[in-house]
């Protein structure tokens, strides 16, 4: 990898993560309308991967600048909370399959776009911690994007959007993930004291997202035990991945 400009590595892997979202239409394409239980497990999978990334960033990314990291985490949490409240997407139920309200449609797209941006901060910051670590985090978030897109697709399809457009939309909502990854990598890379802030921001944002949206959603869709198991296994996979990097 040494011959390649590291910025290109960030671009490549964040693009992989964004395009992985297209795979989210597959379950729908294969078996038609998905049972709520499957969507719940998908949300739990997405939540567990996010929890694992937050853990990995905290342990690998905050070896020094712990206080700045903590302050960054509070900032990340507040940023997500305020942004979602300001745009009216707080407490948004991500699986109202039969809700055809136009407002619900744009809110859903917005939520997916916002998720992509926060994950972009995580990828950019992780790549600055070390490229192999960043790559494993980008791959974890790529997998995370699949069940997230699966939930997105389920709603789009019930609103009459063809699957090929759903796949395109799922990827398009993640374009900003690529942009934010690269910008964070370049900007924070040129101002190293900002790194603990960026790592902390990503941790706070991801933890808040999975706790305010993914997990409460999943609990209403499937049994608590199965949700807890899926979440834990997903987290364990990221812990293993992060250590291998």
């Amino acid at each position, binding site marked *: 990898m040494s011959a390649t400009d590291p910025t290109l590595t960030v671009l490549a892997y964040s693009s992989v993560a964004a395009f992985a979202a297209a795979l989210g239409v597959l379950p729908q394409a294969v078996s038609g309308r998905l049972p709520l239980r499957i969507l719940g497990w998908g949300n739990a999978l997405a939540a567990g991967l996010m929890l694992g990334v937050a853990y990995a960033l905290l342990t690998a990314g905050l070896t020094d600048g712990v206080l700045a990291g903590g302050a960054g985490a509070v900032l990340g*949490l507040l940023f997500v909370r305020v942004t979602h409240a300001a745009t009216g997407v707080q407490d948004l139920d991500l699986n109202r399959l039969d809700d055809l309200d136009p407002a619900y449609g744009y809110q859903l797209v917005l939520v997916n776009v916002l998720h992509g941006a926060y994950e972009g901060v995580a990828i950019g910051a992780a790549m600055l911690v070390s490229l192999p670590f960043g790559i494993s985090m980008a791959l974890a978030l790529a997998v995370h994007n699949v069940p997230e897109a699966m939930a997105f697709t389920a709603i789009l399809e019930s609103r009459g959007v063809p699957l090929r457009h759903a796949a395109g939309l799922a990827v398009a909502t993640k374009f900003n993930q690529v942009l934010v990854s690269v910008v964070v990598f370049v900007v924070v890379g040129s101002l190293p004291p900002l790194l603990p802030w960026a790592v902390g921001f990503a941790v*706070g944002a991801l933890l808040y997202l999975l*706790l305010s949206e993914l997990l409460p959603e999943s609990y209403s869709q499937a049994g608590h035990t199965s949700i807890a198991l899926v979440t834990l296994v997903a987290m364990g996979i990221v812990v293993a991945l992060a*250590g291998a990097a």
Partner: protein
Amino acid sequence: MSDVVLVFLYALATALATGLGALPFLFVKEVSDRVVGLSNAVAAGLMLGASFGLVSEGTVHGRLGTLGGALVGVVFILVTQRLLAGYDEEKMVFEAARGEGARRMLLMLVVMTVHSFSEGVAVGVSFGGGMTLATLITVAIAVHNIPEGVAISAVMRPQGVSVARCAGWSVVSSLPQPLMAVPAFLFVEAVRPALPWGLGFAAGAMVFMVLVELLPEAFHEGGRQEVATLTTLTVIAMVLFQRFL
């Protein structure tokens, strides 16, 4: 005084510190549904943050052992749940509560008590490295135990258990620490390979408890945004706290 007695006394002191965790509940006068939800959110954050610390320490000693131990921890909770489910929930009485509340309190105490076994081993092993740092390690672990007492009291106090009894049960949950610290200290070389398994076990059991009991209960009684905010802040505070000790 022999080193063995000293290790026991130090570990006992850390167990007693757990009881201090009940003190904040002297200031919570009225226990409404919202307080129940938010207490569970705080307990969830404390246990998640503590597990992050256990996993990162465990993976230093052995990654596969930590993950394997976590799996055993999850199976342990599943089996315990199954055993508790064998009793008629309506007839189950524990402290001031019955039914669902009694079951959750019992499970919480089981989880926290078994996790103390692993912590006791960790204490003993660290003492095995020499007695010079003993006082420092003891103080650090005693302070670590206080939030665990807070987590236990946060689950028990809303069920109508008195502050004094919350403190008592918190100390009981930590008693395995002195009991395990002494053999671990004496047989440190034999015990060391088991350490990642023990730490992983404790982390797996605690995260699973958070996901299967505490968070669903928190979301049931409290709003998504406040639960997510409180849990995220608690995780961050717990991680900072561990880093500075």
